């Protein structure tokens, strides 16, 4: 009936999940800890992160400056106590990774090298060429193997959180290889499932990023915070949406419109200099750069391609030697997927959905208000990112808060009671639901890919870089219809063995939940802040909206949005100034 029983169960084996697992093992070696993940850990999306990880290291830098950059980058929607803890612990976590073997790029004298990054006033972004996430993930995974008591459930898909007596006490999960559906009980559960970029049609995110943890929490009664804030990264490759790292601009790349003009100078982002200037032009924050693209497009200054409008990223002047040393993956990706060589040619790019600032509402230790439930990494919203995350803050975030959530969950689990037998009844019900509604259902009329495509198109049209009350209401209506139609989805595949169509159906259900939370939260936030730009409310409104949105699922299935004041410690709301 149960596949296993643990003290702490971590859902997701990416950077946050593995860091949390190690933290639990180190906090209390007597605890039984397990990681359940729908993919093998080294397949997790952390692997795709490219540019770097921010942590103050230079003698000319300070924690306060990193905090201020993060706060202003967030358009003052982050919680400043969380940011202060984050910037203080980030360098230690990055050093810990160094001690675990991460191949950070180095200065000639052997010290850690740092590079500039968007919205950062100092050089503080650690990097491993431009495969930082890949190296961090493999270092964490390989190091986690040293902790042999960390049990793994690889390729198990979690479908439900088991909640009894107001406490989360485990999950129900589907083992892909066998098709068995079992309870995995635990005294504490940490969600580390990453984001949900696949709710949009054009995204840098891997296909596995379907908001699973957000949906699990939402359906268990936990709140989703600040879901209206979706980050568009300014430089994705057309068609594939593959990310071209911000490091390309940090190393000196330029964004050019169809006339070869560095158009960012027209958007209050500074004046163009040949060399990169911190917090200026191409090193402005992502929200502002993606918004500038939309205006260039409206002015007719972009370049038309068979995959939509683009601008150009020019790194030719950096030369082959620098590109091969510091941006080898950029060159590899351009050669493979665009058949161009950035050493000699311009890279076509357009804004692409990249990151969810919002997520499961947690406190500074990763704890949700639901007893026994924790969250860390992109799935969570602490929040250090507010209305716009700065590039290179997400990798240290998953380390700092993965470790914090691991320690907090370990402490909680050390004294929490054993899971109640009653949860096994819930698991039986869940198994029956999955079998009856999906696996054995033969009379459906809707296709998974059809619904998913419609959902993604709806999100882009209604909740893109610019939104309006009208577009959001219309989008929410469409998503409600799609949810109805989802009830009659048809599976062609009724096999128990590695049924990826069943997984796709479950993921589509999760995407629908995430979409609903985004649209409702966006509709109710009648102001413009960071990545949330309302054409009908173009100004920031601190009087009414210096607050986190909290989206909760009501018993009737609808979405209710409440607000929670932002925590301000030392930086009162001000103007975001870049390039001047």
């Amino acid at each position, binding site marked *: 009936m149960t596949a296993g029983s643990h003290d702490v169960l971590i859902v997701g084996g990416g950077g946050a999940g593995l860091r949390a697992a190690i933290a639990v093992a180190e906090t209390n070696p007597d605890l039984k800890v397990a990681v359940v993940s729908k993919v093998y850990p080294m397949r997790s999306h952390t692997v795709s992160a490219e540019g770097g990880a921010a942590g103050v290291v230079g003698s000319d830098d300070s924690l306060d400056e990193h905090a201020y950059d993060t706060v202003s980058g967030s358009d003052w929607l982050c919680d400043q106590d969380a940011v202060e803890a984050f910037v203080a612990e980030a360098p230690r976590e990055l050093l810990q990774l160094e001690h675990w073997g991460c191949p950070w790029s180095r200065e000639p004298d052997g010290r850690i090298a740092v590079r500039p990054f968007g919205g950062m006033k100092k050089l503080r972004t650690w990097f491993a060429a431009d495969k930082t996430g890949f190296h961090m993930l493999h270092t964490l995974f390989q190091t986690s193997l040293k902790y042999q008591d960390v049990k793994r459930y690889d390729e198990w898909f979690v479908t439900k959180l088991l909640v009894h007596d107001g406490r989360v006490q485990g999950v129900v999960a589907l083992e892909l290889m066998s098709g068995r559906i079992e309870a995995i009980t635990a005294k504490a559960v940490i969600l580390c499932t990453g984001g949900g970029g696949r709710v949009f049609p054009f995204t840098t995110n891997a*296909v596995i990023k379907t908001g699973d943890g957000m949906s699990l929490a939402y359906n268990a009664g936990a709140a989703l915070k600040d879901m209206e804030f979706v980050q568009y990264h300014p430089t994705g490759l057309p068609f594939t949406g593959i990310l071209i790292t911000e490091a390309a601009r940090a190393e000196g790349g330029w964004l050019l419109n169809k006339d070869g003009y560095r158009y960012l100078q027209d958007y209050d982002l500074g004046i163009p200099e040949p060399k990169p200037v911190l917090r200026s032009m191409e090193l402005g924050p992502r929200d502002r750069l993606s918004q500038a693209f939309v205006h260039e497009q409206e002015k007719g200054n972009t370049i038309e391609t068979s995959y939509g409008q683009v601008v150009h990223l020019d790194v030719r002047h950096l030369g082959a030697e620098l590109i091969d040393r510091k941006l080898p993956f950029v060159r590899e990706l351009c050669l493979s997927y665009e058949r161009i060589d950035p050493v000699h040619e311009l890279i076509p790019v357009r804004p692409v959905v990249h990151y969810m600032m919002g997520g499961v509402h947690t406190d500074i230790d990763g704890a949700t208000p639901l007893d026994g439930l924790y969250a860390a990494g992109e799935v969570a919203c602490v929040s250090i990112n507010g209305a716009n995350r700065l590039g290179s803050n997400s990798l240290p975030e998953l380390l700092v808060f993965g470790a914090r959530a691991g320690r907090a969950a370990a402490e909680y689990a050390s004294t929490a009671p054993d899971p109640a037998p009653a949860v096994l009844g819930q698991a039986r019900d869940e198994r029956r639901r999955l079998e009856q509604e999906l696996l054995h259902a033969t009379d459906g009329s809707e296709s998974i890919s059809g619904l998913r495509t419609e959902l993604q198109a709806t999100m882009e049209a209604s909740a893109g870089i610019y939104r309006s009350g009208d577009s959001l209401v219309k989008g929410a209506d469409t998503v409600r219809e799609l949810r109805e139609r989802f009830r009659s989805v048809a599976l*062609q595949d009724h096999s128990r063995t590695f049924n990826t169509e069943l997984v796709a159906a479950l993921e589509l259900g999760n995407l629908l939940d995430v979409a609903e939370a985004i649209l409702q939260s966006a509709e109710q936030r009648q102001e413009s802040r960071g990545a949330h730009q309302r054409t009908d409310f173009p100004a920031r409104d601190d009087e009414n909206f210096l607050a986190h949105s909290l989206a909760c699922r009501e018993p009737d299935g609808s979405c209710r949005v409440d607000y929670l004041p932002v925590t301000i410690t030392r930086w009162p709301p001000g103007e975001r100034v870049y390039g001047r």
Partner: protein
Amino acid sequence: MANTIVLQVARYRPEVETEPVMQDYDVPLRDDWSILDGLNHVKDQLDGTLSYRWSCRMGICGSCGMTVNGEPKLTCATFLTDYAPGPVRVEPLQNFPVIRDLVVELGDFMRKLPQVNPWLVREEELPVSHGEYLQTPDEVDEYKQFSMCINCMLCYAACPVYGLDPEFMGPAAIALAQRYNLDSRDQGSPERLEVMIEPEGLWGCTFVGECTRVCPKDVDPAGAIQRYKLTAATTTLKRLVFPRGAR
């Protein structure tokens, strides 16, 4: 150029077929479509029952390795036009048990990986407050190539030794051991050597070099293994000559 191409895909559903059968699908032949795009077209438009793994679609997560016209390939980084006019045969990676369709069982590799101690070993672990272990760019370059492995399993699929002897540790695991051995911060090579001098370790490799040829990330496992053998031979010899340790 024809505007479609035929994918001949190996199907195996243990509840349905007793052995794999090939099934043909017509997919659009588009300039920028990878083999994976073709499979996704099948899955979304033609046949929802086809099972395969994929995730990042940018050649870094290592999920989508398959056999394409007889060669192990990352299907997200292999393009349909390179096989025009087709047909393109897509089968699961060789040398692994097949779970279903194009999905193979990786348990053997996942069990081998921890055996090579793929983590940094220190006689004395300095506290993090001590700061970073210094490592010059040249010292990083010593092991960097071997740290680029994405565990895609193409090298195991190509390795004739692994094909004959599943006990063989295999290219990626040995290259990973060597990645840590060559890291100036690491002091764990003696323990790793104990594993590697077992019959199923280093010496199993007969230097066919297929692993290096098929590696999509230029890791050069064959080179790692050859270099490792040299170290192993020297160390073994030293142990014979100086049983109490060389001075």
